[in-house]
């Protein structure tokens, strides 16, 4: 709407000019005497005059109507032609200038963006920042059918968003997320807005976004990225729902990978996009490690490593400034000398954790030439370097944006899975190994997780049967699904949540209750089968018969 008013205001001059020129021309034609076919004097009436001026102004053709003009009339028409042409040129020029004016274009794009946001009638999330993380988030949400709107400071990134091949339209606006007006334009006050996710690379902007959202819409879920602990604590103080510190999560994952590879691989599988083939588990060796770079990332890694009891030699180019321990080896780690000094020949693994991808790659290449058996962990800062990191044959790549995006997507799209991963402890190695084996057995075509809530709306047959007092155990449904699909392994229930009870890996003999929420992992066809059994009374009865005939067996 502002664009429309701006256009009207700017076109005031041209329109008044046109009206005046037309009025004067018409008036002149009606006043100047002419002659008709028989030579009698005649005056043009307003209708003919307006008709003549209309086509004179736009085409200057059609001849002299209704009778050939007298010299006086021709004189007047000549003057009028020049004036009307100039008036039209002026008007069209102004209209084109208006269309090219940045303020007008901005008003237009803002209007289009607002209308696109208004048209969203499903719950949607506002994503502030369309860098590496924002892009992965938008892709992840879109893939799972969730709507999003995007704000970014750079027009180039909004252009990238427009060109991205997304299945659902994601409106994007080039605006400063720090201004409350930008967030409101992106739908902060919309009733369909479900939450705000601030993942810009600037902690201050993220903080401002969190404050704005919590002040204007306290009920909204707000998730923020924060790389500085103080800012994170500040965000927590006014109720930000979740704060993602990439360095901490990073270091925590790395520690998990070193300590309990099975646990790490389970997390990785379950948070991968649907259909990704299961990656191979890794077994990092025990022994002394080398840690290159002692910035925020290095510090976090060092803390978690010492917690795990892993000794690490630190290499840092500026130990004074980074407050590194006294036995730190000074250097970049990209030179063989420094690496030798850190005793790379006898080390088990190396972590290239500087904030420069080129240096990290260089560290890896150099280290590997000296000791080919090294287990290599590298930090990837920029997503565009993915091809290089893949080619470098690194055992474990830690990519910041990927980790943040996975954490946030899991938390929002599948809260049950987030809960499961939180409960997943890495104390019992054997238990984790067993779980990893069971998951890989259940998921033949890539890890896929889904929720089943036993409610009348979601699975009517199951809800009604339970209401009538039928005793249905988890195995009844699982066995039937396995029988129908003909697959080797049944889908695996990971978590069962009811009113005041949460069960990790519920037993197959568990009796279901109305209101249960179950997290499964398995194949896509298994999901369809289970949904079908839970929703169709005949299928459910056949499953119950099957369960009654064969005594309950342990499907695990």
């Amino acid at each position: 709407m502002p664009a429309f008013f701006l256009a009207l205001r700017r076109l005031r001059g041209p329109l008044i000019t046109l009206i005046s020129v037309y009025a004067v021309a018409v008036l002149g034609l009606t006043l100047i005497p002419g002659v008709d076919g028989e030579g009698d004097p005649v005056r043009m009436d307003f209708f003919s005059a307006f008709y003549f001026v209309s086509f004179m102004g736009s085409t200057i053709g059609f001849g002299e109507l209704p009778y050939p003009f007298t010299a006086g009339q021709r004189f007047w028409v000549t003057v009028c032609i020049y004036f009307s042409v100039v008036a039209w040129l002026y008007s069209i020029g102004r209209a084109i200038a208006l269309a090219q004016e940045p303020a007008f274009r901005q008003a237009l794009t803002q209007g289009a963006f607002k209308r696109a946001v208004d048209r969203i009638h499903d719950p949607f999330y506002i994503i502030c920042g369309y860098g590496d993380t924002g892009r992965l988030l938008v892709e992840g949400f879109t893939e799972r059918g969730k709507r999003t709107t995007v704000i970014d400071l750079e027009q180039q990134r909004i252009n990238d968003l427009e060109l991205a091949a997304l299945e659902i339209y994601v409106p994007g606006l080039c605006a400063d997320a720090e201004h409350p007006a930008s967030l409101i334009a992106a739908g902060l006050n919309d009733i369909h807005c479900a939450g705000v996710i601030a993942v810009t690379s600037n902690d201050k902007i993220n903080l401002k976004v969190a404050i704005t959202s919590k002040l204007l819409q306290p009920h909204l879920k707000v998730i923020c990225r924060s790389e500085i602990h103080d800012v994170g604590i500040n965000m927590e103080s006014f109720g930000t729902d979740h704060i993602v510190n990439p360095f901490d999560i990073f270091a925590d994952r790395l520690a998990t990978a070193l300590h309990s590879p099975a646990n790490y691989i389970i997390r990785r599988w379950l948070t991968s996009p649907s259909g990704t083939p299961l990656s191979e588990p890794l077994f990092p060796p025990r022994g002394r490690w080398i840690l290159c770079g002692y910035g925020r990332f290095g510090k976090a890694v060092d803390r978690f490593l010492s917690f795990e009891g892993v000794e690490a030699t630190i290499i840092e180019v500026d130990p004074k400034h980074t407050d590194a321990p006294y036995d730190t080896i000074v250097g970049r780690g990209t030179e063989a000398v420094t690496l030798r000094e850190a005793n790379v020949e006898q080390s088990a693994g190396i972590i290239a954790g500087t904030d420069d991808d080129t240096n990290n790659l260089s560290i890896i290449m150099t280290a590997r030439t000296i000791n080919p058996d090294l287990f290599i962990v590298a930090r990837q800062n920029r997503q565009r370097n993915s091809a290089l990191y893949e080619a470098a044959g690194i055992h474990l790549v830690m990519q910041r944006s990927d980790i943040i995006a996975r954490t946030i997507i899991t938390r929002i799209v599948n809260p049950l899975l987030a809960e499961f991963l939180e409960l997943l402890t890495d104390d019992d190695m054997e238990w984790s190994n067993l779980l990893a084996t069971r998951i890989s057995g259940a998921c033949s075509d890539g890890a896929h997780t889904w929720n089943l809530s036993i409610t009348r709306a979601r699975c009517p047959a199951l809800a009604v049967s339970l209401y009538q007092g039928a005793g249905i155990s988890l195995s009844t449904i699982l066995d039937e699904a396995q029988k129908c699909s003909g697959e080797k392994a049944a889908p695996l229930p990971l978590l069962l949540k009811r009113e005041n009870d949460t069960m990790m890996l519920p037993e197959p003999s568990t009796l279901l209750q109305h209101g249960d929420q179950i997290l499964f992992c398995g194949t896509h066809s298994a999901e369809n089968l289970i949904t079908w059994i839970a929703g169709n009374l005949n299928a459910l009865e056949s499953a119950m018969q099957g369960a009654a005939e064969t005594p309950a067996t342990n499907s695990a």
Partner: protein
Amino acid sequence: MNLQKVLFAFFIMLALTLNFGFVMGEINNPSHHHVYELFAALVVSLIATVMKFGDRTHMGAVLLAASLVADLQLIAAAVVWGISVRVMEIELGTGVMSSIVSLSGGAVVANVISVVLLIIETVQARR
């Protein structure tokens, strides 16, 4: 004093006075209502409308609406005139004249509202 405000008020009032001048007289007497007066009223009314473009205040919106109503009524009057005389070739008699004048009479009401609103706005600005 602001030249733009002068022009604005000038056109709004001129639209009313010209319109009123055309309507004045016996409603069905063609000799009381001259075509040039209708033409002038229409042109001034159109210009007054354009001058009201782009004002986003509530008052501006109502002023614009009143002006659009006046335009519509005057254009209707001019079209009735043109069609009855040129297309249907009826003599400009009492029947046609009274519909033309009553249409422009409607425009007078809209123009009066415009002027009243203008006065209210001015008084408010004084306070």
